[in-house]
């Protein structure tokens, strides 16, 4: 009787722990999945201001400017078909440059300006985030040899 009883306890405890984990996971998934969108997607999908997402593409040439406080950078992210204006307050990553790939995470403001909470420009000068490469391919503007 004892071992059986014991096993029952364990199974119950295991189920409880697992159930707890699954419940937490489901609740967390609801809110915390961050989707990736290209500028074209942004116009096509009509994303609301309370949905956080990642915007990826190239930093449009000659679009980078500073606002008056000197800390907010404004630029446009383009997939060469459409472009979305972005504002970011903070120090940009070292590899942020016009014409380079960039991924910004944040929310779309009511005025159509994407307010970035973080900006990622990664690793090396030839690097293009794979999402960006794909977005460029989708918009038919892909010119590179391989991703």
């Amino acid at each position, binding site marked *: 009787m*004892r*071992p059986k009883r*014991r096993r029952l*306890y*364990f199974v119950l*405890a*295991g189920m409880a*722990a*697992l159930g*707890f*984990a699954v419940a*937490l*996971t489901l*609740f*967390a*998934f609801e*809110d*915390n*999945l*961050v*989707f*990736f969108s290209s500028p074209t997607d942004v116009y096509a999908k009509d994303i609301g201001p309370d949905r956080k997402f*990642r915007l990826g593409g190239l930093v449009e040439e000659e679009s980078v400017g*500073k606002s008056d*406080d*000197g*800390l907010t950078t404004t630029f446009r992210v383009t997939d060469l078909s459409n472009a979305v204006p972005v504002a970011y*307050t*903070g*120090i*940009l990553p*070292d*590899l942020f440059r016009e014409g380079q790939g960039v991924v910004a*995470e944040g929310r779309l403001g009511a005025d159509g300006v994407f307010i970035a909470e973080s900006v990622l420009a*990664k*690793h*090396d*000068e030839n690097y293009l*985030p*794979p*999402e960006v490469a*794909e977005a460029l391919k989708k918009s038919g503007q892909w010119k590179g040899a391989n991703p």
Partner: protein
Amino acid sequence: MIAELGHFAIVLALAVSIVQGTLPLVGAQRGIDALSAIARPAAIMQFLLLVLAFVALTLAFTGSDFSVLNVWQNSHTQKPMLYKISGVWGNHEGSLLLWVLILAAFGFGVATMGNNLPPSLRTRVIAIQGLIGVGFLLLLVFLSNPFERVFPVPAQGNGLNPLLQDPGLAFHPPFLYLGYVGFSIAFSFAVAALIEGKVDAAWARWVRPWTLAAWTALTIGIAMGSWWAYYELGWGGWWFWDPVENASFMPWLLGTALLHSAIVVEKRDALKTWTVLLAILTFSFSLLGTFIVRSGVLNSVHAFATDPARGVYILAFLVVAIGGSLALYAWRAPTLKTGGVFAPISREGSLVLNNLLLIAATATVFIGTMYPLFLDAITGEKVTVGPPFFNATFVPLMVPLVVVMAIGPMMPWKRADLAGTLARMKVAAMITVAVALLTLYLSGFEPILAVLGMALGTWLVAGAAIDIGERTRVFRISLRDTLNRGRNLPRSAWGGAIAHAGLGVAILGITGSLSWEIERLQIMRPGDRIGIAGYEVEFGGVAPVTGPNYDAVRGTFRVFRDDELVEVMTPETRRFTQPSMVTTEAAIRPRNFGDLYAVVGESNGDGGFATRIYHKPMINWLWVGSIMMALGGLVSLTDRRLRVGAPRRRIAEAKPALRPQQQAT
């Protein structure tokens, strides 16, 4: 010539590992001693060959032999010597060579130190270790040859990614690998035990030190990577729930579970099949981590390999190794005899709870890590699962774990009296409440989660202290007797208490740095001052400096406290030419209970510079806590009962001074 020698050595090692992985298994099964006897010399041979290969590659790197493709791609004559050496494993091929070298080293360890193991078990363990070696050597020899030549010989190399040119990161991979690969021994022991059909206390006594050593190395490796991210990436984050980090964190979580369940097997002869499963899972997650990191399915600083053939190969190997071992488990596990019984409220019970929570936590991390990959593969939709997900799932699971963690070590085996155990925790509870109230008072109810974090950390530290205090009967007997008792306590008891307290200290550090961090972001001109956390920081302008293989812009900050100069901080922005890249070097100064952290950004073209200054309170506690955890592992390893080669002597030295339940610790 040296490169050819190295190449020859890895090919030979592959041949040896095939022999090591097959013939001894047959020998052990059929009782053919001649075949079984091959295991040990083969394991030693394989280790020596891989040492030779590794030395050959290292020489190619230190001598900047650019006729070797790998050296040309990853090194440069101007690189400092430390990074020429760390460049050996700072790339896919070299790191794979390091991986198999460590794998062979563990096999070598069993072969040379395993005299007191039952011969058939030893033979099988070495053979399984050989089979894992075959899997990785095939990849090394056929798809990732580190000794490939390039012709014509280039005059100069491409250099190493500057982000990796860092002392913290130079030793991060070797430690991580020691951890990952160290779990292979637990795996080999598990598979060998399944074949043997026998798991007993002696088995656990062997598995535990190896697991403990691997766990300690992995702890150090993860902490180093985290520390590197903290000071190198320029904004002071130390954990991002990045898939690459999770890849090392999942084996750590499972390894922690394994470490604890192995105690139950050893002490109580219970949870045997479960421990075998955990051993298999832990190494499987190490393999999975390797796949995630090395296959190029994710893009990160770790993804060297872009050759899809490698990814496919690792995936296939993963399926064979994990699928095969789990199938063996399903087939053989029911034949293992179950052992001792115990009540849910007992030391064993608390360790079971520990295991359940750690498994559940691993599961949430696994889902968060793999979901984007699955979704991308199935729908092509790109998503990111960020820190909020993990905070919402992982953290709540850790809370009950930490609560029980302080009590568990004080429970007796088999059946515990919960009220009595809790009564002993009275002092810890009082300290915890005091700290929580103090936090509430000082922080003004903001943020409320900080109070929980501080309370949990304190609870754990106090619990560990009381555990040791109870065992040494401090304040109840004379100080000298207490010290004597302390000296006679099993080292594993000390180790456990130190590691538990270390986690508590780390939790305090995490809570403090997340809750009360101050960030100041502004444009500063030379002479400008800002105030942060009681300090005045004055910007002194920037100046160009030249490093060994980069040019940099160095900013100067003078830090004042009460108008007295206390620190000068000099963050840099470094511009490397080989390969062309810019990195930010933050200036970090530990002050009292926290770090001052300064970064200088770009010029606004008008004499001002974007600057970012942080005060990160208690962040140092995180590093101290990590070191304590690793130290706990090391102290525990010195326990004579666990010392490899001396496991049988234990019975002879019973300790009459201890009460029965503690004796069993």
